[in-house]
């Protein structure tokens, strides 16, 4: 792809190259899903090397495929379709999905989602002031000869997203992310992974 350089005289042109696409959506939670999630209790503690909090990932990895979550799954799938179109990717389907609860001091250590294409975090319910989801810059490694004197789009080591109720964050699964210790009583997340539709069906 060619960078388009303006015709005729100009003084300066800046190009923001090779960015990573993170998308935020507002996805309303239906009454049926809300009741189901409020009564969801099949949770176990995270292994300590992953974080501190409760999760369904040890027992339930198909949360969004349950009939009670059908409407939410359709909404999230529509957002994934849009992400794929914007990013130039082949369409994906929701694969594994699971429920997470972080209470006070709950934390998730840095990780990424291998084998997945796009990952997502949907917040059906979060208290105000809950811990942000933090993405780590994928271009930190080569910046060994420069000193940053202010945070800009180009120097940021990480990017924080404060969760809100009914917010969905979509991001490439290869992007490292984590959350810092939570200071509120309730921070609920539905996490999801995806796979390419036709490609995986052919295999």
């Amino acid at each position, binding site marked *: 792809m060619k960078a388009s350089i303006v015709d005729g005289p100009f003084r300066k042109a800046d190009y923001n190259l090779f960015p990573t696409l993170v998308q935020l959506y507002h996805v309303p939670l239906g009454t049926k899903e809300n009741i189901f999630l409020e009564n969801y209790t099949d949770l176990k503690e995270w292994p300590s090397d992953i974080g501190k909090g409760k999760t369904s990932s040890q027992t339930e990895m198909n949360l969004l495929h349950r009939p009670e979550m059908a409407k939410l799954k359709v909404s999230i799938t529509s957002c994934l379709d*849009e992400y794929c179109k914007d990013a130039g*990717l082949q369409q994906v389907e929701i694969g594994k999905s699971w429920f997470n609860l972080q209470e006070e001091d709950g934390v998730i250590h840095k990780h990424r989602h*291998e084998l997945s294409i796009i990952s997502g975090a949907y917040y059906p319910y979060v208290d105000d002031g809950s811990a942000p989801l933090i993405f780590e810059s994928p*271009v930190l490694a080569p910046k060994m000869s420069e000193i940053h004197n202010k945070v800009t789009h180009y120097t940021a080591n990480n990017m924080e997203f404060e969760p809100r109720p009914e917010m969905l964050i979509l991001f490439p699964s290869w992007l490292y992310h984590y959350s810092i210790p939570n200071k509120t009583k309730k921070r609920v997340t539905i996490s999801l992974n995806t796979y390419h539709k036709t490609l995986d069906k052919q295999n």
Partner: protein
Amino acid sequence: MSVDFVHHQAFPTLISTFELEGHKDEKTVLELIETFEKTGNHRLVHEGQSSYIKGDEQFLNDKRLIDLWKTIQECCDVYTQEAGIDYTLISTSWFNCLYEGGLVDPHRHERSVISGAYYPYVEPGSSPLVLESPIQSNFMNTNSISLTNYNRYEIECVPKTGLLCIFPSWLRHSVPRNPTQKRYTISFNTVRHMDRNYYTTLRDYRMEKHESLDS
């Protein structure tokens, strides 16, 4: 269904281009390049000549090019200010001449902060400067079906006479085989301005006199 959304183009890499065509030193720089005696073969440059021999060359420090040095240095300051990194100082500089069939292998400029390519003369249709995506190694599990800002592996910066392109030194880049007779580039590296005293040969000509005036 009402779905509001926001795009975040996270962690981009800044490339700045500056239009310097018609600079007062343009003619002088061409004369210097075309009469330069100490060119040779560089391992990265094929079918061309380079003044990069030892790696400590300071072509832009020639007294006859001081105004061009100052202009390029000012562009570096604009870049670092925009990017949010410490000011830099031009450290080494050299020129490459590519002829028909000439190319430059992929490389990056270790131990430099930002680098640049200034084109004092290029014939129309000359090869682009190709900048590689620093995040492409993460794309091993995705299947792209259309090219976007988020999945491209490289971008081509098409040179024209007078163009200056500044980019982070860690960004891998190359020049594919050139189809024209003449493509001249002045390349340069930089160090942190605050570190300039560690280098005995570096001067900031905006504050310090040229070494030719040393008594």
